[in-house]
């Protein structure tokens, strides 16, 4: 492998002010939150403007980066001392971070614009935009940070934004519960990340990427494996990978643009970013890498299975997101050969999944916020733009030849196949499942019989919503080919993550590729027979064991409940009881004992002067005896 280039301090040009990318949306959020109802009328425009401005800065930085020779394409921007002697606030502008920045601000802008329409009837639209802006700022800090502490601030910042946005409709108890669950499950991951940072600090005496990565090879294998696994735990939390996947499906309680931006395109991919960014550690810890790939494959299958059984369109898409991130994890675990594919798939996935989610949102917008696909059907004629863009996204995700997903997913599968046959074939199987569940979704939604609710009057969404859809679908078509063909993206990323020793060559019609296509086709055809050609019942049939298994999210929640929540509740109850009766009881018992003893001792005071006199006489006798004794000694 070709090692990444060193980070060069940089303080001029657009990159010198790249912190504006973060500060602008943060400012937007602050203004919107502090100004109160005064800015209700134009607040959403401010939110959009801030993200667009941030996008402009990102593009400008990107252009400046491209203008530099390849060995100078890692620029460090020092900002200020954060914790003196430990961590400084600084940004790292390199191909990896700028790719993310472009994705976040670009897709983010589109989703902001879309939200103007989607949230137009919500009285709290201003607050919504404030949270979205906050999210963009935190996400940018996450990807642009030049050290783990700053990264962690962004990491938790996006968690907060995710919490606020999932629970945006707080009056719904389910939304509030889902938000809390997301945050807490994420915290479990954060625990891993924190310990990883501690270990990095104690191992290298620094948390800055520039300092620690070059030293990775010198640390012991055990340490690096531990760091790798801990980082993976963090990544699992954020990216909803097994075993911390359970929050993502509940997170669909949030407004649909949130699901598109946070729970599909950007935040959930932060785990992949973390693994790729920390590639230097993983490369010296093959065990950790292996675990990453296993987690990736397990999740990609689990997500696909869950996605196949959900009737809620958003939950179906959430399962799909899990599955796709599983692909990215798989690629990220393979090493430098997979990094480029992981990130490329991440970017194309950002486009087509945002496209799909926004499309789903558009459908819901027209269907009185109905999310049950069994109540859709035959929507194609009434919302053509939504339907066509959705179908483009669908074709992209299942890997229809020449669309985005085809290139990136195929790249991952082939790399995996070279790396490990079992993983490769499992990934192929996952692709087949993708073909099935996505087709099922499209057929149930846009084709077949109308199964609408009586009061549903589906209609096409306004332009402010459809234009972002169109733009995203254009990305969904062409981005994959642009990134993958000629290893363009791999070479671009090289300064950040290095290059594999042997550059892959993309060839159409490889064994794995053909097998994938065949399986996808089988899945799609099967879906057509079940949900396109046949009538879909309006109430879900009981289904087989497997269906129930998938509908219950593979019993993930039940497992959490039995293994963690119940014992936790018992422990809490016991601890409260122990505190009241045990610790406090001990203290109060001691007090009561003293009180009781003195109460009994008090009885010696009979009030009879003769008793007192008796004790005085005894005392006198003792004194005389003592005097005699001492005198005789």
């Amino acid at each position: 492998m070709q090692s990444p280039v060193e980070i060069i301090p940089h303080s001029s040009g657009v990159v010198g002010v790249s912190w504006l990318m973060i500060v602008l949306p943060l400012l937007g959020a602050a203004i919107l939150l502090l100004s109160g109802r005064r800015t209700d009328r134009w607040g959403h425009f401010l939110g959009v403007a801030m993200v667009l401005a941030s996008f402009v800065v990102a593009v400008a930085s990107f252009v400046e980066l491209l203008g530099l020779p390849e060995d100078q394409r890692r620029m460090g921007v020092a900002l200020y001392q954060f914790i003196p002697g430990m961590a400084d606030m600084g940004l790292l502008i390199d191909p990896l971070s700028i790719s993310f920045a472009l994705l976040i601000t670009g897709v983010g802008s589109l989703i902001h614009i879309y939200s103007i329409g989607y949230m137009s009837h919500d009285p709290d639209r201003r607050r919504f935009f404030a949270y979205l802006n906050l999210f963009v700022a935190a996400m940018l800090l996450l990807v642009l940070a030049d050290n783990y502490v700053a990264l962690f601030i962004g990491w938790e910042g996006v968690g907060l934004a995710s919490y606020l946005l999932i629970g945006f409709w707080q009056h719904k108890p389910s939304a509030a519960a889902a938000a809390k669950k997301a945050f807490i499950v994420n915290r479990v991951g954060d625990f891993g990340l924190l310990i990883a940072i501690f270990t990095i600090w104690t191992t290298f005496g620094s948390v800055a990427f520039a300092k620690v990565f070059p030293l990775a090879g010198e640390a012991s294998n055990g340490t690096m494996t531990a760091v790798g696994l801990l980082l993976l735990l963090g990544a699992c939390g954020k990216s909803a990978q097994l075993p911390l996947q359970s929050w993502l499906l509940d997170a669909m309680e949030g407004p649909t643009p949130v699901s598109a931006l946070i729970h599909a395109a950007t935040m959930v991919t932060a785990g992949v970013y973390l693994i790729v960014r920390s590639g230097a550690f993983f490369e010296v810890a093959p065990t950790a890498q292996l675990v990453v790939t296993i987690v990736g494959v397990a999740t990609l299958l689990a997500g696909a299975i869950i996605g196949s059984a959900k009737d809620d369109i958003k939950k179906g898409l959430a399962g799909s997101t899990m599955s796709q991130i599983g692909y990215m994890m798989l690629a990220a675990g393979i090493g430098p050969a997979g990094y480029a594919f992981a990130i490329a798939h991440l970017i194309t996935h950002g486009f087509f999944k945002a496209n799909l989610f926004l499309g789903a949102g558009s459908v819901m917008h027209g269907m009185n916020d109905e999310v049950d696909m069994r109540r859709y059907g035959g929507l194609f004629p009434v919302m053509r733009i939504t339907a066509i863009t959705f179908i483009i996204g669908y074709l992209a995700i299942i890997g229809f030849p020449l669309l985005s997903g085809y290139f990136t997913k195929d790249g991952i599968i082939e790399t995996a196949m070279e790396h490990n046959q079992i993983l490769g074939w499992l990934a192929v199987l996952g692709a087949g499942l993708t073909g099935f569940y996505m087709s099922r979704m499209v057929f149930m939604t846009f084709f077949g019989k109308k199964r609408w609710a009586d009061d549903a009057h589906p209609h096409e969404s306004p332009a402010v919503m459809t234009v972002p859809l169109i733009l995203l679908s254009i990305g969904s078509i062409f981005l994959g080919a642009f990134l993958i063909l000629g290893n363009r993206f791999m070479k671009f990323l090289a300064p950040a993550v290095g290059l594999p020793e042997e550059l892959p060559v993309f060839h159409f019609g490889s064994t794995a590729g053909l097998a994938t296509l065949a399986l996808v086709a089988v899945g799609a055809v099967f879906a057509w027979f079940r949900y396109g050609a046949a009538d879909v019942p309006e109430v879900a049939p009981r289904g087989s064991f497997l269906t129930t298994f998938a509908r219950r999210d593979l019993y993930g929640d039940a497992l959490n409940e039995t293994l963690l929540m119940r014992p936790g509740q018992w422990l809490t109850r016991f601890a409260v009881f122990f505190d009241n009766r045990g610790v406090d009881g001990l203290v109060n018992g001691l007090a009561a004992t003293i009180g009781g003893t003195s109460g009994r001792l008090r009885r010696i005071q009979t009030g009879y002067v003769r008793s007192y006199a008796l004790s005085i006489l005894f005392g006198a006798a003792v004194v005389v005896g003592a005097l005699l004794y001492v005198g005789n000694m």
Partner: protein
Amino acid sequence: MPWLSTLMAVPVLGAVGVSLVKSDKLAKQLALAISLVVLVLTGVLAAQFNPTSGTRFQFAEVYDWIPRFGVHYGVGVDGIALVLIALSVVLVPIVILASWHDADGTGANAPPKRSVKTYFALLLVLEAMMIGVFASTDVFLFYVFFEAMLIPMYFMIGSYGGAQRSYAAVKFLLYSLFGGLLMLVAVIALYVIAEKGTFMFPELIGAIQDPTTQKWLFAGFFIAFAVKAPLWPFHTWLPDAAAQAPAGAAVLLVGVLDKVGTYGMLRFCLELFPDASKFFTPLVIVLSVVGIIYGAIVAIGQTDIKRLIAYTSISHFGFIAMGVFAMTANAGAGATLYMVNHGFSTGSLFLIAGFLIYRRGSSQIADYGGVQKVAPVLAGTFLIAGLSSLSLPGLSSFVSEFMVLIGTYEIHPVPAIIATTGVILAAVYVLWMYQRMMTGPTAESVKLFPDLDIREKWVVAPLIAVIIAVGFFPKPLLDVINPAVDKTLSTVQVDQFTPAVADKKGAGQ
């Protein structure tokens, strides 16, 4: 100019003035004005403070008090004391403003009317004592302030508190006195055994060399501080006292008074008895870790807001004590910073909980629900305070908790890892409380809640501002704290850790 004496004299004279004026309203305004004057004076003092100068205790004043026993009126501040004094003087005006109607007896659910002037005079007296206890450089003077602080707090809980106030006040007093008396014995023994003929702290450093003596004296000091802090298992007075105290008093109790315990551990236990401190480190760290986890778990199970906040504090005090006894530069600085940050974050939680209770008349979590819909600003500030309590990065507590954990991890990785699970539990107790109180359908009883009024916004705004500012830019505070902590640790003579893989160009940044 005797800065520190002035700082103490102004609130004491102010308290006299407050108790003499005729109208309650004037008394409140006067109290607020006095506390603001103290704040400004402290600001001037802090501006003159030079953290890197060679003299350790600056603005020092030493006068004989009881020459026969070498007791001095000795005051002076280093970085640690300075930030804690700053915490106190910032919190007092906020608390005064927040307690504006606490003793009035007005409002639908307010407690009955009690003497307003006394309440505010007590607050000012307490402020003077808090400054005194942190500024003392004489061990005996420290002890005097340490115990005298109980008196105003006892009356504030016992006269102005909730239904169970006398039980809570007596429990608080007895617990603290118990610890204090052990400390008195240790202080006297220290004086006698050291044979220095003085109680001045700088001269007593290194005076006790015998390891057994050190251990006994350490135990005397430590138990007093562990009760005060409070560390598990000496904690049970805190939930009662904090739940029964009026919100303002609870802020000062948990925010400042309890810090005297952890401050004492850092200042006195470590420096006076370095060998004993090292000997007892495993025990203290175990107690701290138990406290962190235990406090968090019990907090999850609470049904009363104020008790819940009190238990979170027990968890946080575990972090602070762990940081103090990890005896690394990062952990020590983190623990000191934590003392300050905890004052602000828990202070704001208590105050906002106080606003809620003032509106509803109940501190039961189950009596609330859906407050966010009717009072979004109230809910929002409550969430920010809560997030600070769960040490969300970007808010002040994170910096300190992170430093404590990373500093502890340098030397004691296993306790640090166990303690880190506290961050998960913290998320559970804060967010579950928020979920139960603020979200969901609006409960009938909270339908008519007004949002924060101007006064309440002025109470909350500075706290939130400090929390966010320190969260993103802790350097000014750390620059003051670090030299003082380094000095302390150099007295203790602990080996600082070195990274396993050192950078060839020199480890660290």
